[in-house]
């Protein structure tokens, strides 16, 4: 197993994917959050709470949670690339026990996901602090609380990358898999969020669980303001984390189990 993990790491680092992932993480973490922090959330339309409030910091940092489909896409593209470029044959010839190969892959991409999350969080945290300093306001939260929030975002990034790998391993076709990931996170989950009756399950969908994990209820609150709906409730951060890890575990299990029997053509 350790040989397979070494091999999968070697494969990963033989491409520029790790480098690009971290560059993208820096952009996603620093970019959106940085922009909001620099402009000042109170200057946004509609105005948001400022960085000198805990709520304002939460919204600005939580915004980067909206970009969690990015690590999912990285995982999806990396895995389906094996099918697209037909390297999966070489992989399964070298390691015919496919379940172990997929397990090694999930571990390796989990590690990349954590690296992605840490870089994104580091940049988001820096952006918030620089933004507050530039506006000459005291940050609305303690450094420890900010670090904890960022840490939870990093965990979510790792989970999303694993989800992306699993979806890629199941769909195999790159465009299809990318469509599934984007279609779900950009469209389906938001639709589920606004259908009365159905939206009670939202806290237990990946996006809802992420919102709970990062205390980010901005979207569901906004929807509640616009529509005659009760805001979709969120669970506690702890339950959110459990739900997300549950999704990762189920996705991993399916991704390991299904390709075992499939023919390669």
């Amino acid at each position, binding site marked *: 197993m350790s040989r*397979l993990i070494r091999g999968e790491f070697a494969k990963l680092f033989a491409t520029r994917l790790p480098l690009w992932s971290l560059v993208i993480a820096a952009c996603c973490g620093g970019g959106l959050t940085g922009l909001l922090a620099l402009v000042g959330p109170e200057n946004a339309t509609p105005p948001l709470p400022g960085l000198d409030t805990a709520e304002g910091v939460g919204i600005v940092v939580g915004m980067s949670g909206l970009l969690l489909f990015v690590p999912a896409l990285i995982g999806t593209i990396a895995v389906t690339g094996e099918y697209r470029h037909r390297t999966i044959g070489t992989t399964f010839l070298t390691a015919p026990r496919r379940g172990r190969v997929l397990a090694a892959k999930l571990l390796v991409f989990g590690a990349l996901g954590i690296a992605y999350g840490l870089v994104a969080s580091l940049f988001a945290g820096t952006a918030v602090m620089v933004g507050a300093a530039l506006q000459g306001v005291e940050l609305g939260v303690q450094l420890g609380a900010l670090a904890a929030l960022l840490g939870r975002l990093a965990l979510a990034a790792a989970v999303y990358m694993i989800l992306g790998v699993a979806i890629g391993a199941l769909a195999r076709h790159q465009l299809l898999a990318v469509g599934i990931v984007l279609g779900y996170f950009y469209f389906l989950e938001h639709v589920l969020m606004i259908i009365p009756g159905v939206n009670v399950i939202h806290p237990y969908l990946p996006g809802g669980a992420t919102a709970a994990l990062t205390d980010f209820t901005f979207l569901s609150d906004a929807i509640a303001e616009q529509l005659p709906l009760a805001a979709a409730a969120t669970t506690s951060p702890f339950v959110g984390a459990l739900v997300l890890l549950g999704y990762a575990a189920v996705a991993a299990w399916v991704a390991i189990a299904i390709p075992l029997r499939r*023919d390669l053509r």
Partner: protein
Amino acid sequence: MITASSDTASPQTAGARRTTTRRDRAMSGVPIEVAGLAKRISGVDAVRDASFVAAPGRVTGFLGPNGAGKSTTLRMLLGLTRPDAGTALIGGIRYQELPDPTGTVGAVLDIAAAHPAMTARGHLRSFAALGGHDAARVERVAELTGISEYLDRRAGTFSTGMRQRLSLATALLGDPDVLVLDEPSNGLDPAGIVWLRTFLREFAASGRTVLLSSHVLTELQHGIDDLVLIDRGRVTWSGPLASFTDRGTSLEAAFLELTSTAASDIEGVRA
């Protein structure tokens, strides 16, 4: 006291079994044995009751027209496709159960390629690591296949012929006892084809097993010892190439006859 040297120790004795090295296996050889293999793909019998043997020390050609079931058979042999029936064994063991798969069998298949963004070196290093082979093998297999100068170029920039050589280099990483090649001459120039033929001859001459498929008869004519003919999923003839051509007709005429006559006629000439 005389101790049995590893060369003469019987692999059947329990003690010798543990110490059997890969060199010993090469001495006795690792055969490919396919028996009763069958596979339906999308309602079509891609392979029906295919049986043949590829013996160590010999180059076996697997010949048949396009769509005859060659690739499907080879994929079943290599554990990439699950057969509906029958067995395909390498040295008596299914591919998926080989303790050291790439150290036993090297395969060149169109569905086993290199990532275009990786350099040849990066690709070979990755698969050496994945297969548990020494990183020094990378330089060695590059030398063997003549791609040393191209190691730091990205696989995506390779010509088809270079890609085939990289594929062969990957197959050789584990210094295998058996080589399985699916249409390896595709994209090779005439000089490349002659080079490959010589390479496979030498590989087999060291007591190892070569099974290569082709749909081009003339390509196999000069490079193989044994022939397995497949048509519409059935093995229609197998045996030494010499006895095939002894049938009195030219190889080409015999091939056409065996691949175009009705299945009932084919039964009659099956070896």
